[in-house]
């Protein structure tokens, strides 16, 4: 694949990601937001492939699209009446939030582009990273790996405990 084709595909996925993320925050309909978030997650997964993080791209699709997005959709279904066709969310602080958006994004971009350039080490990640990820997980990062697994177990038990139904029917 030539450099030109790769560049065009990159810009397509970047536009998909940014536009669907903008639609998530600009539409009032909660269902539209959730489904637009699907395209954002797929676009980000494609960007991970461009960053030669293929394992992370698959994990992104499995965890975010298969897990978190389904959870969010369940949340939308639970907390809105199904009979209510317009599941709109109200907005507040629009002016302040627009200023915050412009300030944060502009400031971050200015600090990126005004800096004289990142020091390059001369080498980049190439090829598949599945092997290195497994090696690092079991050598340098084995303690964070175990800690995060215990955290996930505790969080899921806590979530199931919090969201359970009583026999009495209330909370």
């Amino acid at each position, binding site marked *: 694949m030539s450099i030109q084709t*790769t560049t065009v595909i990159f810009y397509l996925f970047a536009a998909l990601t940014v536009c669907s993320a903008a639609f998530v925050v600009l539409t009032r309909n909660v269902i539209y937001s959730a489904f637009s978030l699907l395209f954002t997650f797929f676009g980000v997964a494609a960007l991970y492939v461009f960053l030669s993080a293929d394992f992370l791209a698959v994990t992104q699709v499995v965890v*975010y699209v298969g897990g978190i997005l389904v959870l969010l959709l369940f949340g939308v279904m639970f*907390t809105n009446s199904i009979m209510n066709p317009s599941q709109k969310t109200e907005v507040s602080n629009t002016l302040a939030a627009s200023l915050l958006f412009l300030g944060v*994004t502009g400031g971050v971009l200015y600090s990126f582009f005004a800096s004289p350039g990142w020091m*390059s080490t001369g080498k980049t*990640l190439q090829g598949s990273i599945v092997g290195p*990820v497994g090696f690092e997980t079991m050598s340098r*990062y084995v303690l964070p790996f175990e800690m995060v697994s215990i955290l996930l177990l505790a969080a899921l038990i806590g979530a199931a405990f919090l969201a359970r139904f009583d026999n009495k029917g209330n909370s």
Partner: protein
Amino acid sequence: MQQLTTIGLNHYLTISALLLGFGLFAVMTRKNAIVVLMGVELILNAANINFLAFSKYNGGMQGVMFALFVIVIAAAEAAIALAIVINIFKIFKSVDVSKRDSLKE
């Protein structure tokens, strides 16, 4: 033109800055708690893109490993937050976060 046609670090940093801004916008403006959660997911994705971009152009594996841990913690956060939101809905019959200022009924 050379800047635009060769994909470099700055392209990824631009995308992640935009995602961060949109996520902050959603967290600040929306009154529905679920949409606030979606904004938090956008912010986490922006951080992940930054981690992976620096890892790619650094040649090391540190960013990749931390991006993996960020994904796991995002899953835990979504589960807990959804449980809390469902509890709020059961007690107050609404998920409007701008009206909730008490910790119990």
